[in-house]
């Protein structure tokens, strides 16, 4: 019933608007079409000018509104390069934006129809066309050059001393695996996955797996000022490791291992004071639609000092010992030292 009423109401409103429109059409004919058209044209000219002013004011307001609501300073070196490149691009495109929009609206106002104006027959001009082909081409070349420099930097191989961590997406959370004491991630096989006691399908015949640690809280802990390399995988559909605070992201594709690396420069605690937000946390956002829980596929990163990291790591037990209580526990007596300088690769 209410749907019926609302629909009727909406239709009624439309009919009224249409009738008013229709009435103004009749009035136009009565008062002389030419005259009214000229008047309307003038009104529209002013309205367009007003629209332009309103939009410029809106852009100003929007800037003010978002001031301080955007991301804090980038928390890694490549992220800082990112921000400066972003600003350069904003400047280049911003100049073009304001210039062309202003010209567009100004021409509309300035050259609105007037009586007895003969327009300027201006069909082409090679010089002008050459100029505005060349200038964008040069501007683009500059942006491409900056872009590629940053792109190769951010996609370059991780430094040899990078800590390797595996992060695997599944519907709908992240699994984080550390190589443990031997600094080598053991083999895994999707056919060995078992949600009860082997979430990543670790191959227990591979000795490298005996000390591998799967973060119990799901948190990714990394050491400040030390490069970390993520080996990214997926158990089911495509996910994406999105790290807005580090200005980087990479897809997690089943059947393929992708990687990204960065060197965090600001600890979680310092970021809390930078942002003046005691609840601040580095978040991992899934950026590739992965099903109904996509919006809740949240991971967290803790950037901390080496000492804090070691303390946290000492509390972790190997996934093997946690899930194979009957088996011989893997040696875990001495505190695990994971700041390896050795290249760690996943077998």
């Amino acid at each position, binding site marked *: 019933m209410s749907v019926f009423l609302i629909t009727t109401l909406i239709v009624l409103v439309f009919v009224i608007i249409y009738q008013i429109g229709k009435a103004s059409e009749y009035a136009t004919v009565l008062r002389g079409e030419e005259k009214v058209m000229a008047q309307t044209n003038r009104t529209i000219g002013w309205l367009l000018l007003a629209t332009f002013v309103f939009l410029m004011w809106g852009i100003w307001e929007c800037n003010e509104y978002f001031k301080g609501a955007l991301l804090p300073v980038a928390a890694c070196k490549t992220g800082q390069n990112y921000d400066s490149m972003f600003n350069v691009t904003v400047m280049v495109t911003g100049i073009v934006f304001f210039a062309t929009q202003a010209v567009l609206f100004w021409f509309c106002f300035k*050259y609105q129809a007037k009586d007895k104006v003969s327009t300027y027959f201006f069909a082409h001009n090679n010089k002008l066309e050459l100029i505005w082909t060349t200038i964008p081409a040069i501007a683009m070349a500059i942006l491409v050059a900056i872009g590629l420099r940053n792109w190769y930097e951010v996609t370059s191989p991780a430094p040899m001393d990078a800590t390797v961590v595996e992060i695997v997406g599944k519907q709908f959370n992240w699994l984080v695996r550390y190589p443990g004491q031997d600094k080598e991630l053991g083999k895994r096989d999707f056919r060995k996955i078992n949600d009860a006691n082997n979430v990543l399908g670790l191959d227990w015949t591979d000795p490298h797996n005996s000390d591998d640690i799967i973060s119990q809280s799901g948190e990714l802990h990394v050491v400040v000022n030390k490069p970390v390399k993520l080996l990214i995988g997926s158990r089911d559909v495509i996910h994406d490791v999105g790290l807005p605070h580090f200005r980087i992201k990479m897809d997690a594709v089943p059947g393929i291992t992708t990687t990204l690396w960065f060197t965090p420069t600001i600890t979680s605690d310092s970021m809390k004071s930078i942002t003046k937000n005691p609840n601040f946390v580095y978040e991992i956002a899934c950026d590739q639609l992965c099903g109904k829980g996509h919006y809740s596929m949240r991971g967290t990163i803790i950037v901390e000092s080496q000492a804090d990291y070691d303390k946290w790591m000492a509390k972790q037990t190997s996934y093997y010992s946690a899930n194979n209580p009957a088996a011989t526990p893997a040696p875990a007596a001495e505190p695990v030292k994971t700041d390896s300088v050795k290249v760690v690769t996943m077998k």
Partner: protein
Amino acid sequence: MNHAETITQGTHVAHGHDAASGHHGHEHHEQHFIWKYIFSQDHKMISKQFLITGMIWAVIGALFSVFFRLQLGFPDSTFPIMEKFLGEWAKGGKLTPEFYYALVTMHGTILVFFVLTAGLSGTFANLLIPLQIGARDMASPFMNMLSYWFFFLASVIMMISLFVETGPASGGWTTYPPLSALKEASLGSGVGMDLWLLGMAMFVVSSLLGGLNYISTVLNMRTKGMTMTRMPLTIWALFFTAVLGVLSFPVLFSGVLLLIFDRNLGTSFYLSEIFIGGKALPHIGGSAILYQHLFWFLGHPEVYIIMLPGMGMASEVLSTHSRKPIFGYFAMIISLVGITLLAFLVWAHHMFVTGMSPFLGSIFVLLTLLIAVPSAVKVFNWLTTIWRGNIKFTPAMLFALGFVSLFISGGLTGIFLGNSALDIHLHDTYFVVAHFHIVMGVSAFFGMFAGVYHWFPKMFGRFMNNSIAYIHFFVTFIGAYLIFWPMHYEGIAGMPRRYYDYSAWESFKHFQSINGFISIVATIVFFVQILFVFNFIISIFRGRKVTTPNPWNATTLEWTTPINPGHGNWEGDIPEVHRWPYDYKDDGNGNDFIPQTTPLRPGEESH
């Protein structure tokens, strides 16, 4: 072009014999309702069929966006009215996450394919190609009719998918596998996904039948004197649109076909090493990324399939209503060629973060940013076209001006996303949403609106109501900026797209109030579009009648036909063309334009 006449006449004669309705060009019989309005082979009727079907889809697609904007803007509220529309999917007036994703997916599918591809080029290629090149109909009117009916079939299938128990496809309009390939991965990957794939396959058939027809008509059926370089820019744009569609839609078809195999026949084209629903699947060795390559090989040209008709129509409308020739006619054509070529070479810029080789990525960066050059040329040429003109703010003109404004705004943000080093953070955030909605959503729609307002008199012999059209323009134009401008900032802050609720995220939850604001504006803009539809329908029957064959004082051929042209378009011979389509200058008799059919005056140089 000595052959032109023979060819045109020849085809026309042949067509006269073929046509089931059995009518020669200008001989009018009272046709049966079914042959005149339903199984019509008249390009003008088919164009109206495309337009009206497209409009129905547009209303549905836009309504979906209102529903999911309500969820995004007010995640803590309930809207009992949604339950009336969506039933179980919005129990208690709150969308379920599954259906939220289904709505997002169908919103994209409907608007990209059913409205801005079929509804846009289907309408205007059909209407304008024969009328503006001086042909009595398409090269194959029967294939043309089939093109509509395959589109109709695709529409029916897609519509059915909205009502199946597990809901329509919900993996995004790009339907990436494995999500779309595995029934266990999501509810929408069940029957809804099969129907989606089938519907898209039918859609590709429709698009190919139409596209081949448009190309052959433009190449073969131009009237005497209508050389390629005397064609209006609309025809150039629609021609390249058809070329893009014909070359890229088959690739989507192959991608879709392989996905159907993976879903139903146990193949592993896109699947490898997957554990889902509590068990490991037997698939090994496929590549999920392969699908993305196949999809975007269509998907990127698709963006230009959507944009080019709007560019062509905006060029035409800007020139006509500022009473000035289009500036740089040849530069406009060359830039269309450039955009068309580059459209095929940039698809992987949608895939910078899939783990593809950084070197390959850098090639795509270069090619992508190259597109900015022809695009910039077009913008500058449009601006120069209105410079020192005598601008009449008809509704069509306003929408064409709005098109230029939005194309600039949306095009410039493409420079961010095409640069992989910036995309690596902005990818799949609201920045992307803002970018493509402005440039290929709203801007393309503005091109379409310009076309509808400009050619409505040709289609129906009546005008649409101007006052409502002005309301429509200003609310939509300002609304579009109010909706999408703030989204850029959200994207810069890393806010991911396709999220149902942000309240659990420390980094994004403070955008709640701006999301609410966006939703309110979006709802208002939606109702103004309904007002447009209302204006459109009523004006067909009650609009002010057109009293002169050439109401806009335009130069092109469609305005030399009778006010309500019959099948065959011209009574008597097809007019001959003597000059380019943009001779907006003093004709010596007090008119500020010279139609293409006027012979060159002695001593006058052709363009």
